[in-house]
């Protein structure tokens, strides 16, 4: 009994790391640009398929192809930004959030159906030689691929954190978040900052998707669920803190695992949404609003 519980929590943490990774991407985009890109889940799906096809057609190991999946999403991100999202930059904040949300829905519809037509509606996952291997510690199983995925996620989140704190461009991004007008005055190209933030967000979604296709499975219609997961995690973790968002992902993963343990797997999605509503109700300004306070 206790072992099953602990095993569930471990699985929850491993999945939660991917939630965190994906949500960090969305949170960075929203925090910097105030674009609410609800097609984030579809970007994740594209990353998953990129990795899946590289493995199936060219036998590229999924962990080796991670940079390629990220690169694919960088391209998609640049296209989406310059074609669509850049047109909303001049709007005031509330209108921008709403317009980008609607654009995002259009994009997600298109991408989802594109994926369905190109790659069918089947569930896909990558099965490598080491897929079934796992370490066992005190009778608790640690599947190798999922542990490796968690390590990748943690490394990427730390790298992003360091990039934002230390590097010159990262500081420019943070300055833009603080006050984009003053940032413009002191010579920061806010357009470029927006583009880079958007593209990093897309790349994070791509890597998260690739990791999902290794440890779990992908399907063209997965986008909405993942977008909601990312929104929930972003709210739980609070905006402006990369590490906080990642921890939010871990919390959601464990909460889902505990729900599945207590009332069955069918309700695992519900717990996150409920958590989200509770947080919004207790903090009506939304945890998004932390920065403004």
């Amino acid at each position, binding site marked *: 009994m206790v072992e099953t519980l602990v095993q569930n929590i471990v699985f929850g943490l491993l999945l939660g790391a991917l939630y965190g990774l994906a949500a960090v991407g969305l949170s960075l985009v929203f925090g910097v640009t105030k674009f609410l890109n609800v097609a984030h889940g579809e970007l994740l799906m594209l990353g998953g398929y990129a990795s899946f096809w590289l493995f199936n057609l060219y036998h590229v190991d999924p962990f080796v192809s991670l940079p390629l999946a990220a690169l694919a999403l960088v391209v998609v991100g640049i296209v989406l930004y310059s074609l669509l999202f850049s047109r909303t930059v*001049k709007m005031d904040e509330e209108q921008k959030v709403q317009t980008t949300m609607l654009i995002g829905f259009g994009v997600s519809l298109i991408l989802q159906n594109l994926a369905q037509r190109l790659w069918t509606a089947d569930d896909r996952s990558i099965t490598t030689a080491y897929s079934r291997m796992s370490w066992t510690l005190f009778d608790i199983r640690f599947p190798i691929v999922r542990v490796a995925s968690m390590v990748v996620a943690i490394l990427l989140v730390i790298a992003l954190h360091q990039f934002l704190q230390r590097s010159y461009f990262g500081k420019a991004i943070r300055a833009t978040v603080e006050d984009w007008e003053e940032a413009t005055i002191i010579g920061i190209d806010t357009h470029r900052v927006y583009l880079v933030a958007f593209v990093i967000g897309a790349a994070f979604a791509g890597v998260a998707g690739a990791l999902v296709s290794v440890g779990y499975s992908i399907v063209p219609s997965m986008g909405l669920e993942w977008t909601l997961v990312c929104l929930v995690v972003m709210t739980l973790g609070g905006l402006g803190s990369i590490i906080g968002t990642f921890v939010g992902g871990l919390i959601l993963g464990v909460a889902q695992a505990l729900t599945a343990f207590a009332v069955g797997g069918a309700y695992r999605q519900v717990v996150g949404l409920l958590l989200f509503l509770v947080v*919004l109700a207790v903090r009506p300004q939304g945890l998004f609003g932390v920065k403004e306070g």
Partner: protein
Amino acid sequence: MNRRDIAFVVSALIIAAALAVVPSITVKESVINLLVLVYIYVMMASSWNIIGGIAGQVNLGHAAFFGLGSLVSRILWTKGWPLSVSMILGALVPVAFALIIGAPSFKLRGVYFAIGTLAMAQILFITTRNLFPMISSLPKEALATYSLAPRYYVALGMTLLTVLVVFWLSRSRWGLGMVAVREEANAAESLGVSALQHKLLALCLSAFFAGLAGGVFAYYSAGYYLFFPFFPTWTFDAVMATYIGGTGTVIGPIIGAVFYVLVKEILALRFVELHPFIFGTLFILVVLFLPGGMIQIWSRLRRLFRRAAPAPSEEKAMSESDMVHDRPAVE
């Protein structure tokens, strides 16, 4: 009522009367089925428009109202309750739900309301999928006597009712209050227009007619998965049809819904599932470049013609599309 209003009501009645003849002049079931689908979409888009267009609160949980409406109507009706009672209750349960979720969710600003309602609808969707995983089909005796005509008339009648109520609302003090709250909530409040009351009323009316549409669906369908009307697609379809037609106007959602269903069905005949690309693209274009939708093209054309014609009188009553589309155009 001024002359324009009477003209609207009269033409709505004439169109409805013309449509009422359809079952007696055609035996093609496909035509009837298509029209019923059009009616359901018109009801969904028009009802979404009350909260999303007129009151300006983007509700992404509309499927919850539709789903609840169909669930309640279907279960009561198949248990032997009279159809009318089942459908009315099917419309009132979503209203009760709207009242419960309304007050807390309107505390959330704009986009948080959108995501909150989406989350709520997904919770209901997943829960009903778990609780009612089965197909609800009519009993054998009912299937043997299944006839499209009464279903067609119920759908047509409910659609007419929806459209007329939305029209009345858009002309009423309440409707104008909703527009005021949408455009500038603080200014509206300072004039004594309660934002919360107006939004709540808009949400309840929206829920009522979406629930009614759900009742029509429950009555119309021979068999379906009980959770099917809870699919988020119902929300997205209604939102897209409304935006493409012209959000905030009375006619826009109707045109949008008719266009949406017809194009979708025609495309489905020729190509496989091409419509999501077309509507997705169209929707994005409308959001970015034509916030008034198809209606805006019409009013722009008319303005062009007016400018070309000899000077019209200035005091002429503002047309509906003029009234509603004074939002700043997107640059």
